[in-house]
C-alpha cells in the first residue's frame, strides 16, 4: 500500500472499526516507502496507546516483545502516548537502559481520510520517514 491516501484510508477504517469493536485487537504497522524499516504494534480498542505486542525490523535486524510474535532481540515500550494529533513512542531494551527506537507521528484527518505519518529513528542506525497502516 504505497500511496499515502490509501494508507490514510486504511488507518481511518481501522480507527472506525476500533470504536465499535470492544476489546478487539489489530496490528498497526509503520514503515518507509523503501521497506528498510518497519515497526508494528498490536493495539486494542481503547484510545490510550497500550500495545500488547511490538515488532520491529531494520533490514535483517529484528526486534520483538515476545517469541510468539517472531524471533528477534527483546524490545519493550518505554513510554508511548497517542491523542488526536500525535503518536509518540520510545522503545527500549528489556532493562529500560537502552533506547532502541523513537517514533514520532502526526495525525491529520480530512473527511473519511486519516493520515498518520512521521519519523522512525533508530539510534546508531538512522532515521526514516514512515507512514502507518494496519495489515
Amino acid at each position, binding site marked *: 500500500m504505497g500511496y499515502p491516501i490509501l494508507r490514510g484510508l486504511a488507518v481511518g477504517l481501522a480507527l472506525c472499526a476500533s470504536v465499535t469493536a*470492544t476489546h478487539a485487537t489489530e496490528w498497526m504497522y509503520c514503515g518507509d516507502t523503501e521497506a528498510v524499516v518497519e515497526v508494528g504494534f498490536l493495539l486494542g480498542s*481503547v*484510545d490510550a*496507546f497500550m500495545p500488547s505486542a511490538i515488532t520491529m525490523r531494520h533490514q535483517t535486524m529484528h526486534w520483538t516483545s515476545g517469541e510468539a510474535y517472531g524471533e528477534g532481540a527483546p524490545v519493550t515500550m518505554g513510554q508511548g*502516548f497517542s491523542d488526536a494529533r500525535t503518536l*509518540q513512542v*520510545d522503545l527500549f531494551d528489556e532493562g*529500560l537502559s537502552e533506547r532502541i527506537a523513537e517514533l514520532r507521528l502526526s495525525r491529520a484527518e480530512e473527511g473519511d481520510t486519516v493520515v498518520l505519518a512521521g519519523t522512525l529513528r533508530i539510534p546508531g542506525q538512522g532515521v526514516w520517514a514512515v507512514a502507518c497502516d494496519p495489515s
Partner: protein
Amino acid sequence: MNKVSRSLVAIAGVLALATGAQASEGLMCSGEGATVDVALGRLVIVGVLGAYVELDGTAYSTGPERGEGIPIITGQAFGDDDGIKIDFVDPNIEEILIKVRLTYTGNEDEPLAGTVTIGEQTAAIACMGG
C-alpha cells in the same frame, strides 16, 4: 541528560510518596478542588508506579496503598522536553477516565503545571518539585 531527565531526577530527589512499599518518588500536584499524586520510577522515561487523583470530591486510585478511590490503571504516559502527559483508564481498559497534562514552568518550587481533566471537569494544577 535532557531536560525531562534532569527534571524527573530533580523531582525524584525532592518528593517521596511514603505510602508505597518500594522507595518511589513522584509528583504531588494540587489545585482548586484537585489533587494529583503520581508515584514515578527512577527512569529517564515517565514510568508511573501508581497514582491518586481527586477532583471535586471524587477520588480515583490505582490501589489502596495510594488511597481509597475508584479503581484506575495507567493507560499511557509520556515525558519530553515540553512536559509530562498521563492518561488513566478503567481497569477493563475500555476508556480514558483521567487526563493529566503538565508543562515545565521554570519555577524551582513548582516545576510543572497544567491541568487534570475528568469527563467534562477540568482543574488547573501546579506540581511540587525541586
